[in-house]
């Protein structure tokens, strides 16, 4: 494809980078006065990108026509599906962030700009069809994320979270690079299609090491066990809007990336990496479930919950079928709604003076003092636990269905048993809110934007959404088909 054609495929990315740079200038010029303007403009940019990407998803773009720059980048329906989720999640973060940072007087116009650059990095990640593009996207996202984690400069925990994230992220990048170099060494190429052809049939032992190291490096990004240790600390320490961001958008990007690398580049050797994925999936489910039980901080609990959820998503990947990939995307969509909703509730937990509260005990008796808030969080928790009729159940259903259809009965059985262990701490939150005596510490009001986001997330996980499952499944199927066609 010629250069102009390639450029036309990356219009959303161009829009993101140009507007990011322009907004950075505005921020640098006007300083904190431009906070509001830059945030709004960043939201507008995300909305524009959403509109630019949506046609490729609805149209099910796939095949050679979506490959840009000689196979470095693919703007297919699979990438598009992930990008739409990334835009939506990032937009939600931009909506809730100003109120949070404003309380400390630390809202800066750089925040939305950093989010835009992180989104650009994620876009490159999900579209990458070459190990080099993959790494560039990953690092662009990571560098923005390190800064975002320590954005609350005066808070020790925030700085600690940023540093921890940086050190461990650098380690993971090293592991990933080592894997990439091994893969390159044994296949002679960094392009996914080339690796795919080289791995077809016989595979050298060194290439297997390469696959393992690449997956290990990526497992860090999706916080799958055994590379999850950073998650609870970073989630707890980072400012809550940033935690909301970490647990939604980058997770989508990293999971999509893992899917594309595993099925695209390493597709012919599915048997080789499947055991790694199955192990990571089951252990993530277990560690996520057991680790959450003892937590008293809601952000740490949600961190373990996200580890747990990644396990279920990986069950879909382990199926290594188009249905499995579609189920991953559907699970991610529901997961994003549940996560955003839960963290918006955390953001709305404030005492009379507006200080944020994070202890689970602060939720005690919330159903009597703030019924609407408690009701929404109850729905979100039951949904995360996978109890019908909420959408969290449907997400688990499609993933298990993919696993069972691919013949992974034992994995499916172990995963559902793990989901019961996980249910324990989700219903613990409901118990605290509904059965306990009111602690009545949550008194602060919230603006309409929080309520609107919470309402949207709650509706998105309510049984009403079963009516759009047909449409969603169609989109996800097209996206999965795109991945397998390129692959």
């Amino acid at each position, binding site marked *: 494809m010629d250069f102009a054609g390639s450029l036309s495929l990356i219009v959303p990315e161009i829009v993101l980078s140009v507007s990011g740079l322009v907004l950075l200038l505005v921020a640098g010029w006007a300083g904190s006065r431009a906070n509001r303007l830059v945030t709004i403009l960043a939201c507008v940019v995300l909305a524009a990108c959403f509109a630019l990407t949506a046609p490729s998803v609805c149209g099910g773009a796939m095949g050679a026509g979506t490959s840009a720059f000689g196979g470095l980048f693919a703007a297919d329906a699979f990438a598009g599906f992930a990008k739409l989720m990334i835009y939506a999640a990032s937009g939600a973060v931009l909506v809730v962030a100003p109120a949070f940072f404003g309380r400390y007087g630390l809202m800066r116009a750089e925040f939305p700009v950093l989010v835009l650059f992180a989104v650009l990095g994620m876009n490159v990640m999900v579209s990458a069809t070459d190990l080099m593009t993959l790494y560039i996207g990953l690092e662009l996202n990571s560098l923005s994320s390190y800064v975002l984690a320590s954005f609350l400069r005066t808070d020790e925990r925030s700085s600690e979270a940023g540093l921890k994230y940086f050190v461990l992220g650098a380690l993971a990048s090293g592991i990933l690079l080592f894997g990439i170099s091994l893969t390159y060494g044994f296949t002679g190429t960094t392009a996914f299609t080339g690796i795919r052809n080289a791995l077809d049939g016989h595979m050298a032992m060194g290439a297997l090491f390469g696959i393992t190291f690449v997956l290990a490096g990526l497992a860090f990004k999706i916080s799958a066990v055994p590379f999850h240790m950073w998650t609870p600390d970073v989630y707890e320490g980072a400012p809550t809007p940033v935690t909301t961001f970490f647990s939604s958008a980058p997770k989508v990007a990293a999971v999509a990336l893992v899917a594309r690398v595993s099925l695209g580049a390493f597709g012919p050797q599915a048997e080789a990496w499947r055991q790694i994925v199955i192990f990571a999936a089951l252990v993530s489910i277990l560690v996520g479930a057991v680790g959450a039980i003892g937590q008293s901080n809601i952000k740490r609990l949600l961190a373990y919950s996200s580890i747990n959820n990644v396990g279920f998503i990986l069950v879909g990947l382990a199926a290594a079928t188009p249905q499995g990939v579609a189920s991953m995307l559907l699970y991610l969509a529901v997961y994003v709604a549940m996560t955003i909703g839960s963290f918006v509730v955390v953001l709305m937990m404030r005492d009379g003076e507006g200080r944020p509260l994070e202890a689970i005990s602060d939720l005690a008796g919330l159903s009597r003092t703030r019924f609407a808030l408690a009701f929404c969080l109850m729905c979100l928790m039951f949904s995360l636990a996978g109890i019908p009729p909420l959408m969290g159940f449907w997400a688990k259903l499609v993933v298990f269905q993919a696993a069972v*259809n691919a013949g992974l009965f034992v994995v499916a059985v172990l995963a559902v048993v793990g989901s019961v262990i996980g249910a324990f701490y989700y219903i613990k939150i409901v*118990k605290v809110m509904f059965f306990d005596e009111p602690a009545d510490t949550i008194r602060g009001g919230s603006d309409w934007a929080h309520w609107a986001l919470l309402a949207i997330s709650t509706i998105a996980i309510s049984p009403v959404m079963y009516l759009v499952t047909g449409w969603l499944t169609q989109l996800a199927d097209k996206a999965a088909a795109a991945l397998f066609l390129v692959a």
Partner: protein
Amino acid sequence: MGAFPILSLMLLVPLVGAVICLLASERAARMVALVATLVDLGLGIVLWARYDVGGAQWQFTERLPLFAGFQWAMGIDGIAMLLIVLTVFLMPICILASHSITRRVPEYMATFLFMELLMIGVFAAQDLFLFYIFFEGGLIPMYLIIGVWGGDNRVYAAYKFFLYTLLGSVLMLVAMLWMAHEAGTTFIPTLMAYDFPPHAQTWLWLAFFASFAVKMPMWPLHTWLPDAHVQAPTAGSVILAGVLLKMGGYGFIRFSLPMFPDASLQFAWLIWGLSMAAVVLTSLIALVQTDMKKLIAYSSVAHMAIVTVGLFAFNTQGLDGAMIVMLSHGVVSGALFLCVGVIYDRLHTREIARYGGLSINMPHYALLFMLFTMASVGLPGTSGFVGEFLSLIGIYQVSTWATAVCTTGIILGAGYMLYLYWRVAFGVQRNADAAEMPDLDLREWVMLGALGLAVLWMGVYPESFLAPIRSDIAALDARIARAAPVSDSDLKTTAPKAARGGAQ
């Protein structure tokens, strides 16, 4: 009537009611809940009246391909119809029985209406996953009912109920996924006629068993039941005993037996063994209870064991009997929990020893309590007799030993129920406060009277309840006939004398 979606309407009414309740004041919520359940009762009566006995197996069917992977498929046969009628019959009574609930009434009423929606949905669903959604969805309202409005140890009971039943059900979900994959459909009537490979049947049966045995509950998986019953508010106990426990039995009738007949035979010994153990052991445990609700909870386990032996007798009488025991137990145990609730509201204790001689100051109460006690014991003329007698005839055709053990359990059942009645209603009035309790008021009369009439109707003229299920039971019997176990009682029940003579 024709294509009128009456089943969807029956689901919609409580849903709308629940939403209105959440927004309403306390008084209004009570009224809305009562009206909504009465409307559903009316629709249930219409359903029964319009049900064409001897007509198509599946009636009032609705199919809409609304969702991905499964569809909105509703439809009922006689078995489901009677269980739906039981549900809508008990619900207004539950709402009336919730008079003593004064905390967070709007939420309480909304939760109950949501519960009603899910219970009707379970019996009406014709799609595997739709069934599962209704089946499992019941966990949420029940968890809240026990946990928010329950007794002192409610949190423990709510957790136990939730996790126990969830663990049982998720295994069933994996089995359902496999069945949908294997058979290529999620439509239950098609699956009921699908022959799964015998080796797969074993695993599928065990997965479904894990779920239904916990819901039922079968010994030794019953331990959540006494806790849940004791801690739940009166209306919660009524719903739990009256309808939720029937979901297990319904599951065996709808799934385990017709879909996996070979595996059902293979594991019949397991069911008989567990049921025999349950009948005797839980009856003995019930004898030594000092808490009234616990005693009735254990008696529920014993009665459900009669249901399971009836079901796994593999013949018409056993299946008929199991259905009637389920319906009868739904009414009778519901009534017994209400009887406990009536005196609990007055004295706020369930200790049997705190009562005594109630027939002196509460003669009407004692009369109705006597009726339900006798029905639970299985006195001829009450509903309990019909069901137990048919079940025992069914199992006698297969195993005389099992019958002997189960009959012992029924005798023990008479023992603990009469012992309970004696301690509560007869004897001297030991406690002054119990002696001053007033007799039934109008509200309690209406609730218990309605249940009493149902008990007598079912006992005197069971044909009303047997007729709608006859063709369904016959179809089920034909489906499982090839797997029926060999009898050890050497009965010749099939051919009347004259016919046999003609054959010679």
